[in-house]
C-alpha cells in the first residue's frame, strides 16, 4: 500500500486531490435488460427496439437473467458482497431519449455491495506500489436512447437502439488521490470486466464511460465540495479531467471562491470542463420501487454457478506467472493487464510445452520475452492488435522451439519471424527452404575462425596485448562468415580456443 504524494502546488500551499469514479459499463448480453431486443453496436437506427423499449402502452419489463448473472459475476470478481435480495427503482424524468419517462435502476437496494480493486501505480515496480481502491456498490440499470441533432434542419431524431440496454454502474469510494490512480483504477476495472466477460470495455464505442467526481482539500483535512464530470470516455480523458478540474478548483478556492456542487461536461478538444447544471436546478428524480417488477431474489445455486463460471482473474494470474512460471513481476503484470494478451500468452505456452515436450514453466520465460518484445514490436510496426496478428500462438511456439533446440540462433529467429510476418509461412518450412539451420559443425566453424584470425593478425596482436574487448569482434566476424548459421556457443568456444592457440 502506498500513499500518494501527488499534490497541487497552489499559491497558498499544497492541495490534495480526492477522486471517485462512477463507471457505466454496458453488460455483454445478446438482449436488453428488460426486453428481448438485440443489442448490436452500430446497427441502423431504431432496428434494435422492442415494444417494451419504445414504452408502448401496456408494455412491461421482464428482467433478463443473463444481465443479472453478469452483474453478479462482476461483483464476485471484485470480492464484493452479493446481495441476494435487491430491487429495481424508477428514476423519473422527462427526456426524448427516455421513452418510459423513467429509467429503471437500483437506488435503494443494489445487487452488489462493497468490494475492492487493487491497482498498480508503478508498472516497473508492481510489487512495491499497489493500492486498494474501495468499490461502494454495483447496480444494474437501463441505458437511454440517443438524440440525433444532425439529421434535419429544425427537428431532432431519436434512435432507441440503446434504449433499455443493460448497464452496470460501478461506484468507487473516494479513494483515489491522483490522476494516475484514477487512470490505473479505470484500466484495472476494464481489465477485470474483460476477464469476466461482463463488458467489452470498448470506451470508444461507449460500452464503458466514467463520471468523474473530483474535490480538493488541504492534506489531512475533511473532504471538499465535489464536482461531477459526466460521460468521460477514455482513460486518458479521465486523467485529464482530474488534473484540469483539480487545478480549476484550487484556483477558485485560492481566489477566495467556493466550489459549487454541480455537474460538468468535459470538452476534449479544448481540454476543459464546463458547468452543465448546478445542484439547485438538479432534477428531483422521484425514485420509488418499480411496481412492475418483483424484488430480485438470488438463490444459492444461481450464485454458485456464477462463482464457478468465473475465470482466473488478473491478480491471481499475475501471482501465478511470477511464482509458478518464474516470470519477472513486470512481465507478469504486462501479460495479465489484458485478458486477450494473457489468453494469447497461455496458448503460446501450451503449444511451446507440447512441441518441446517440456513443462510450461520451462518455456515461459522465452515465450514471454518473445511475445513482449518481438511480437509486440512487430505488431506495433504493423499497426495491428494482438487478435489481428498474422502469426498465431502455434506458429510462434514453433519458432521458439527451433531456437530452444539449437536449430537456429536468436538472430536467425528474428529473420525467420520477419519472413513469417511477410509470407505467412511457418518457421520450420522457412528454415528448411532457406537453409537457415545453424551449424555446430566444429570443422567448418574452426576453418572460419582460423580464416578470421589470419585475416586480422593485427587485431589478434592487439587482443593478446590486452585489448580483450576485441573478442566480440572475432565472434562477430566468424558469425558473418558463417552467414549467421553457426551455433553462437560453439563459435565462442572455438574463437577462445583459436586466440589461445
Amino acid at each position: 500500500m502506498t500513499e500518494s504524494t501527488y499534490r497541487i502546488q497552489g499559491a497558498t500551499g499544497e492541495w490534495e486531490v480526492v477522486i471517485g469514479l462512477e463507471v457505466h459499463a454496458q453488460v455483454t448480453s445478446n438482449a436488453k435488460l428488460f426486453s428481448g431486443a438485440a443489442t448490436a453496436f452500430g446497427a441502423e437506427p431504431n432496428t434494435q427496439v422492442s415494444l417494451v423499449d419504445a414504452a408502448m402502452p401496456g408494455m412491461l419489463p421482464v428482467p433478463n437473467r443473463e444481465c443479472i448473472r453478469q452483474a453478479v459475476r462482476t461483483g464476485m470478481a471484485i470480492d464484493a458482497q452479493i446481495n441476494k435480495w435487491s430491487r429495481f427503482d424508477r428514476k423519473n424524468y422527462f427526456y426524448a431519449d427516455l421513452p418510459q419517462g423513467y429509467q429503471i435502476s437500483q437506488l435503494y437496494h443494489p445487487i452488489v455491495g462493497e468490494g475492492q480493486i487493487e491497482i498498480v501505480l508503478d508498472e516497473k515496480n508492481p510489487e512495491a506500489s499497489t493500492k486498494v481502491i474501495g468499490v461502494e456498490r454495483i447496480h444494474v440499470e437501463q441505458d437511454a436512447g440517443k438524440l440525433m441533432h444532425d439529421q434535419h434542419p429544425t427537428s431532432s431524431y431519436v434512435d432507441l437502439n440503446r434504449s433499455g440496454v443493460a448497464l452496470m454502474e460501478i461506484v468507487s469510494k473516494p479513494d483515489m488521490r491522483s490522476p494516475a490512480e484514477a487512470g490505473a483504477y479505470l484500466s484495472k476495472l476494464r481489465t477485470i470486466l474483460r476477464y469476466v466477460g461482463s463488458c467489452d470495455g470498448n470506451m470508444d464505442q461507449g460500452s464503458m464511460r466514467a463520471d468523474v467526481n473530483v474535490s480538493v482539500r488541504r492534506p489531512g483535512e475533511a473532504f471538499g465540495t465535489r464536482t461531477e464530470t459526466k460521460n468521460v470516455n477514455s482513460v486518458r480523458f479521465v486523467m485529464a479531467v482530474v488534473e484540469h478540474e483539480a487545478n480549476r478548483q484550487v484556483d477558485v478556492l485560492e481566489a477566495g471562491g467556493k466550489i459549487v456542487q454541480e455537474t460538468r461536461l468535459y470538452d476534449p478538444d479544448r481540454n476543459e470542463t464546463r458547468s452543465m447544471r448546478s445542484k439547485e436546478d438538479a432534477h428531483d428524480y422521484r425514485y420509488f420501487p418499480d411496481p412492475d417488477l418483483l424484488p430480485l431474489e438470488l438463490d444459492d445455486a444461481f450464485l454458485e454457478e456464477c462463482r464457478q463460471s468465473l475465470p482466473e482473474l488478473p491478480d491471481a494470474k499475475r501471482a501465478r506467472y511470477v511464482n509458478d512460471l518464474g516470470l519477472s513481476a513486470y512481465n507478469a503484470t504486462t501479460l495479465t493487464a489484458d485478458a486477450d494478451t494473457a489468453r494469447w500468452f497461455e496458448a503460446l505456452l501450451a503449444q511451446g510445452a507440447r512441441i518441446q515436450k517440456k513443462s510450461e514453466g520451462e518455456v515461459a520465460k522465452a515465450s514471454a520475452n518473445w511475445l513482449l518484445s518481438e511480437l509486440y514490436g512487430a505488431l506495433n510496426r504493423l499497426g495491428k492488435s494482438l487478435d489481428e496478428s498474422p502469426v498465431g500462438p502455434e506458429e510462434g511456439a514453433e519458432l521458439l522451439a527451433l531456437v530452444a533446440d539449437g536449430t537456429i540462433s536468436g538472430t536467425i529467429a528474428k529473420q525467420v519471424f520477419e519472413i513469417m510476418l511477410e509470407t505467412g509461412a511457418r518457421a520450420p518450412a522457412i528454415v528448411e527452404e532457406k537453409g537457415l539451420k545453424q551449424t555446430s559443425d566444429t570443422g567448418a566453424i574452426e576453418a572460419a575462425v582460423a580464416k578470421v584470425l589470419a585475416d586480422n593478425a593485427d587485431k589478434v596482436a592487439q587482443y593478446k596485448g590486452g585489448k580483450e574487448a576485441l573478442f566480440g569482434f572475432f565472434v562477430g566476424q566468424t558469425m558473418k562468415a558463417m552467414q549467421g548459421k553457426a551455433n553462437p556457443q560453439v563459435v565462442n568456444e572455438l574463437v577462445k580456443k583459436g586466440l589461445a592457440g
Partner: protein
Amino acid sequence: MPSALSLSKGCTFLQEGLGFDRLSPNGVRILTDLTDLTVAEIRNGFRGGDFSAREVAEAFNANVTAAKALNAFIVETPEKALEAADAADKAKAAGDSLGALAGVPIGMKDLFCTQGVQTTAASHMLEGFVPTYESTVSGKLWAAGAGMLGKLNLDQFAMGSSNETSYYGNVISPWRRAKTDGGRGDNAALAPGGSSGGSSSAIAARLCPAATGTDTGGSIRQPAAFTGISGIKPTYGRCSRWGIVAFASSLDQAGPMARTVRDNAILLEVMSGFDPKDSTSLDLPVPQWEANLSSDLKGKTVGIPKEYRPDGLNAEISALWDRGIEWLKDAGAQVVEVSLPHTKYALPTYYIIAPAEASSNLARYDGVRYGQRDLPDGAGLQDMYAATRAAGFGPEVKRRIMIGTYVLSAGFYDAYYTQAQKVRALIARDFELAFEKCDLLLTPTAPSASFALGEKQADPLAMYLNDVFTVPASLVGLPAMAIPGGLDSAGLPIGLQVIGKALDEQTVLNASLAIEERAGFTARPDKWW
C-alpha cells in the same frame, strides 16, 4: 330489434332455470331474445345446436347499434363479432373442437390493447392509437372463441368512479330512479359506476352478455354494484397485465363482468394464467372454477368486518348486508364478527400509492412516439411536453398525476409514499389475522346506489368515498366479487361484496353463488334508450 326465433326441445340451458317468455301450444319454450341469455346459456345453446353463433352475434350487434344513447362503446366492431361467430359456426359444422367461449360475443374495456383496433383508455392522449399487438388477456379470450362487439368506454385511464372522466363522454346507466317512495322518479341520467362503466352499462342493458373489466381500487366491483350485475377481481397476478394500459401497476388487475356467477367463472378461467411477459404474473395452474361451483357453504366461516359498518352507513345498504348474512347462514356457513382495524386508512393509503404509480406510468405519454402531440410554433421539447400533456389528459388524470408527483418528490417521499407502504402492510396484516378466524368476508360493495351524473363530479373526495369498501382488498391483492342483492327504495340495484383469501377465488365464487341463488335478483332496467 330483430329477434331470433328458434324452437328448442329439452336443450341444456333449460335446466339452468332461465325463464322464457312463453310456451308454445305443445309445451316447447319459445326463445324470444338471444340477448337475454347468459354466457353459459349461449355456450351451451350454441353447442347444442339451438342457434348459430352468427344469430347470437347479430342479435347483440343490433342491441349495440340501438343503444347509442348509453354511450357504452368508444368503438363498435360488429365485423369482429361476426367473424368470430362464423369461425365458431364453421368449427362446429366441421366437428372441430370448440373453445370455451366459442359462439360468445363480449365487450372489451378500452384499456386492453387490441391489435388493429383503436385503443384509447378513454383519453384524448391516445386518440387514434391503433396497437400492433394484442393484450395477453384479450388474446386468450379470442383464442377461446369469443368475439369482440367493441371497445367499451371507461373513466379516462381508469381513473374515476362514475365514468364521467372519459374524453368520449359519460356512459349512462340503463337504470333510472323509479317513481317509488324513495325514488324521485326523475329521468336523471345515472352513473354506471367506474371505471368499468361501459362494461357495466352494456351488460345491464343486454348489449353484451359479458365484458372485461379492470379493477385498481374497485373499478370492476363498484360499477357491477351500480348496475345490478356481478364481477370479480381475482387475486393480483392471476391475469396478466401485459397489454393493458397501466394505471397503478401494483393494484391493476383484470377480471370479468357478467350477469351471473357462473359466467364470471367461465370467463375468469379463460382470462387467467401465467404470462412470462408480466413479472408479477402468478406462475400457477388455473383452477377449474366453473366445474367446482357449489353454493353449499357448510364448513365455511364468514367474517363480518365491523369497521365496514360506520355510523351513518346507508340504512338500505346496511339492511341488505344483514340479509346477505342470513343468506350465507342459510347456505350452511358460520358467521363471525372480525376486525380490520386499519380499514379507515385504506382510502388515504390508496390515494397515495395509486397516484404515485400513475404519475410515473403515464410519463410515457409525452407526444414523442405515438398518440397526441401538441407542438406549438417554435416549441422546444419542454414546451411540447407541456402542451401535449395539457391537451391530452383530462382534469382527473392531471389531478392524480400531480398528487402522485407530489407524494414522490424529495422531502415528501417518506412522509407519504413510504408511510403509505407501511400502512399497506398493516392492512395486509389485518386481513391475515381476520382469515385466521374465517374463510371469507362479506361486506357491502359500495356505500350507496348509483347517483346522478354530475352529482359528485365537483367534489373529488365524495367521489373517492365510493371506493371505501373495495379499496382494501385491492391494496392487499385479494380476490373480491361484487354480486347484486336487490333494489333500494328508488328501484336501483345495490350489492354485496365477497372477499376471499389470496388464490381462493373458488370460495369467493361459491359464496357469491349462494347469494345469487337466494337473492333471486332478476330485476332489469326498463328500456328507455
